[in-house]
Every structure is written in structure tokens, then in C-alpha cells.
């Protein structure tokens, strides 16, 4: 599998356009959930998936084999989604949420991944983005504040609020 990925990348870097379908088939299923997590609607997720793949095709020559390809391509799609978010000019709420209990421990819960995705999707845009970036894509608060042009304090409060809302919803569903 790894070899075939290397072959596909090599062929694309040599300008062989036909190899791109192989890359799409290999990554579309993994990347689509990321787009769903970051986007406001499924249609927006499809648009981001489409534009992200076109960007990946154009930039494939800049991938030098240093670092994982998964990380490289994932970052392209996250940037695509964040770029779309910036275009839409969401007004981020700077409110700070107080008295939020973080990192509550839970018993192992039986909940489907697609339901968690739906719950993330229901979050207000600013909470959804911060939650995705911090929890699922390992951004620091400093990086989030830079990417979304918000303060670190706002990033932290948005994360706390997102967690509270999600925890509440999960409890309701699994009760």
C-alpha cells in the first residue's frame, strides 16, 4: 500500500495526470469526514473536498517526502476549510465562558462515530472549529488564535464551551 502511494506520488510529480484518481480513491474516504467536521453543511464539505483535492494536485510537486504524506494532505484540507471559513467572514464570539468543568471522566460510552460527527456538526461555527482543531487535529491554542484571528483566551473558552455542549448532548443520547 505504502509502495503504491509512493508510486502514485512519483507519477503525479512527473506530471502523469491519470495517477490522480488512484490518490483520490485512496484518500477521499478518510478526508471527507474531516471536511464534514469543519464545514457548516454537507454541500460545503463536498466543495471543500473538491477544492482541496485540486489544490493537492497542483501542489504535489512541493511534497518532498519529508514527513508523512497523510499529515501533508490533511493539512491541505484543513487549510481549505479554514480558508472557506475566512471567506464567509463569520463573526467570532469573544465571550468567555466561566464555571465550566473540563476533562470530566466518563465511563466508556457506546456511541457511533457518525453520531459524534453529527453532534460536532451541530456546534456553533466558532466552537466547532476550535474543537476540531484542538482536540482532533492537535493545534495549540496559539496556532488556533493565529489561524482564526482570535485571542488565546477566546480559543480556550470556545473549546470549553464546545466540550460542555457535546458532553451534555452525548449524555442525553446515551441515557
Amino acid at each position, binding site marked *: 500500500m505504502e509502495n503504491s502511494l509512493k508510486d502514485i506520488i512519483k507519477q503525479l510529480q512527473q506530471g502523469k495526470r491519470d495517477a490522480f*484518481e488512484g490518490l483520490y480513491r485512496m484518500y477521499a*474516504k478518510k478526508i471527507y469526514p474531516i471536511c464534514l467536521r469543519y464545514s457548516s453543511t454537507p454541500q460545503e464539505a463536498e466543495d471543500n473536498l473538491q477544492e482541496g483535492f485540486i489544490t493537492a494536485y497542483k501542489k504535489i510537486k512541493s511534497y518532498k517526502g519529508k514527513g508523512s504524506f497523510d499529515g501533508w494532505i490533511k493539512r491541505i484540507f484543513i487549510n481549505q476549510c479554514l480558508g472557506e471559513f475566512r471567506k464567509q467572514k463569520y463573526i467570532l464570539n469573544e465571550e468567555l465562558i466561566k464555571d465550566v468543568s473540563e476533562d470530566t471522566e466518563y465511563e466508556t460510552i457506546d456511541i457511533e462515530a457518525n453520531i459524534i460527527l453529527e453532534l460536532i456538526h451541530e456546534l456553533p461555527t466558532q466552537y466547532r472549529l476550535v474543537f476540531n482543531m484542538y482536540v482532533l487535529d492537535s493545534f495549540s491554542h496559539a496556532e488556533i488564535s493565529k489561524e482564526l484571528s482570535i485571542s488565546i483566551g477566546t480559543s480556550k473558552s470556545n473549546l470549553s464551551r464546545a466540550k460542555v455542549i457535546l458532553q451534555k448532548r452525548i449524555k442525553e443520547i446515551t441515557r
Partner: protein
Amino acid sequence: MKKESFEHIVIDKLSNVEIEPPQVVWDNINHKLNKSSRRRSIIISSVSTIAASILLALSFNILFLDNKINNKPQVDIVESIKESIEVRMEPVQTTNIILDTIKKQVASIPRTTDIIEKDRIQASPITKHHICPINIKQETQKFIAYNNDKVIIDNNIKNEESKRTKPVLGLNISTRNKITNSQTSKINNIESLRSAGIESYIVSTNTKIPKSEITLHTNLSISLEYPIRKNLSIVTGLGYLGFSSKNSKEFYYDDINNILANKVIINKYNSDIKDIQHDFSYIEIPLTAKYSILDRKLAIYINGGIGLDFLIRNKSEIILENNESINNKAKDIKKIAYCGLGGIGISTRIFKSLSLKAEVQYRYYLNDISSNDAITLKNGIPTINFGLNYKL
């Protein structure tokens, strides 16, 4: 029961989730990529067509138009001479070459007066001969034009039927009357010369003239880069090269009374030294291979290949005392030059595929740009090239 943090549960559940996107996404991507590929083909073919058209136009200009002007032999003037010619050397500051040439050409035409040669002195190397039209209707004004090829005496001031070719360069050396723009322009047009009554020429030469060496002072380019492999691209485009040189020449002239008396005196005391500025410009079509050493925001690369240069500007300008000047072309400058190119450069992206570049290049001309004795150019020239690069 095992306790887990909320974050770990979410990460665990979503880390390996896979969802098949709708088929329409791939269809759209495929359609867009095909469209982009077609657009790139159109850009490449358009650029090729433009380059080919420029090449054809330049070739046509070089092969037909320039030849039509430059191949008009000065012999026409000599053949038309019907009347007497006298050349007296006092004191002599000319050479065997000029006298032999004068004799040879004058001997081939009907004449009534022999050339009188009083003395001969070996002068420093002769590099140019000059033809000097004299305006006989305005006797206080004198003009000099020079031509690299021929030494010609035409003292036929009355022959209305004389055929004359266009003087290559004009110069007013009168100290009594300053040249005016209208008079200068007449020099550049033989019909105007005739209508102004300029019907006589004297011969002059320049001595002790240092050779001037041309230096490359401008090199600008726009280029198209076509990647063929990782780090390796083919680059072509258009470049502008400017060469210039400055030197001094000595122009001889004679008193108008001698001209009217059919006596031409080449006299070293009747001479002026004038600055001549030469400017040549070429359009270059390069074809080089580019290898990226560092491909980041500030990229470093090496390149090498060949360049085909087309002469687009050839200007010689004589600077007069009164801040006026007389312009014309220098002879024996190659219209097409070939060179090998090699160098190292840096570039920085300013917009998507467009980048700003600076290159230190060494170019080696495979054919000499100048075969003009007074203008020398080394075959190997280090240059600095600035320009824009578009990566396809």
C-alpha cells in the same frame, strides 16, 4: 468500568472513521483538472506562436529590410562622379590604405584631375573612413558623415544626376554656425540632402582612436518555466540585453573654398575630436534547463543552456558641443548572435506561479557580436539578470 476522558473518547471514535463521498465530487474534480490541462496547453501554444511570430518578423526584418538598406553600395556615388578631383596632403596624417583606396576608386571613374600625393606617413591603425557631405548653398555650414566600408571622394558639386546613398552618420563641425535640428534631419535623408543642395563629399579618416570595449549594462527578462521532473524545469521566454560603449573619433574637414575650387585637403589641423556613443540592444530567446537546489519561498537554482539574440537597436550618436547630437547606425554589428548561458539565481514567489528572479549569469558568444574594428566585445561576459518567471 473503565473511565476515559471525553476527548479521548471522541478521538478514538473519529480517528479511523471513513465515509465515502458522493461520486459527483470526483466527477467535478476530473472535469476541472481536464479544463486546467487544456488551458495550460492553450497558454503553451499561444506563447510558442507569439515567440515564433517574433522570430519570423525579426528574421524577415534582418534578411530583407536591413539588407535592402545596407547593401546599397557606396560605389554608386563613385560611379556618378564626372568632374575633377584633387587631393593634396599637407601635412600628411593619413595612411597608405586610404590613399590607395582613393586612387583605386578614383581611377575607375572619368576625371580630369589627378590625385596629388605629397607625403606619406604611417599613421596609427586606420579603423574608419568618412564621407563628408558639404552643404554648398549655405557655405558657412559643413557636415561630416562617415561610413565604415568605403573611401570616396565626390567633388561633383554640379552634377544633378548623381546617385547617392544615405550617409551613415552626420556631423556639423562648423564653428561659425551651429547646427540646427532641421539641418541635422536633412543629413539622414538623401532626398532632403539633395533638395538642400548637399552635393559634395570629402574624404576623411580618424587616427589615434582608442578601441572602445562594449560593456553589458542591462539584462531584463520574462520567462516561462515548464517543470519536467522534480527540481528540473525547462525555461524559455524573452530577454532584453543592452550594450553600450563610448569613444572618441577624429573627424577631418576642409575649408569650403577648397571644395569650391575642386581641391580637397586632408589636413590634420582641420579636425575635431567628438565623442561617439554606441548603443546596441538585443532581444534574446533563451532555452535553458533549471535545477532547483532549494525550493522554498526563497528558491535557489542553477541554470544552463543556449540563447538566440536578435538585434533590435543599433544607434551611434555623435555628441556635439551645444548638447545636440546626430544619430545613426554602427556597421558590422551582428544581427543574430548565439551564446551559451550558465549561472546561479534566486527567486521569490510574488503571486501563485509568478516569481521575481535575480540571476548571476555567464554568457559566452559563439559568434562575435562586433566585427567593427573600433568596437570590441569579449565573447565571455558575466551578467546580472533580473526578471519575472511564470511556472506553468
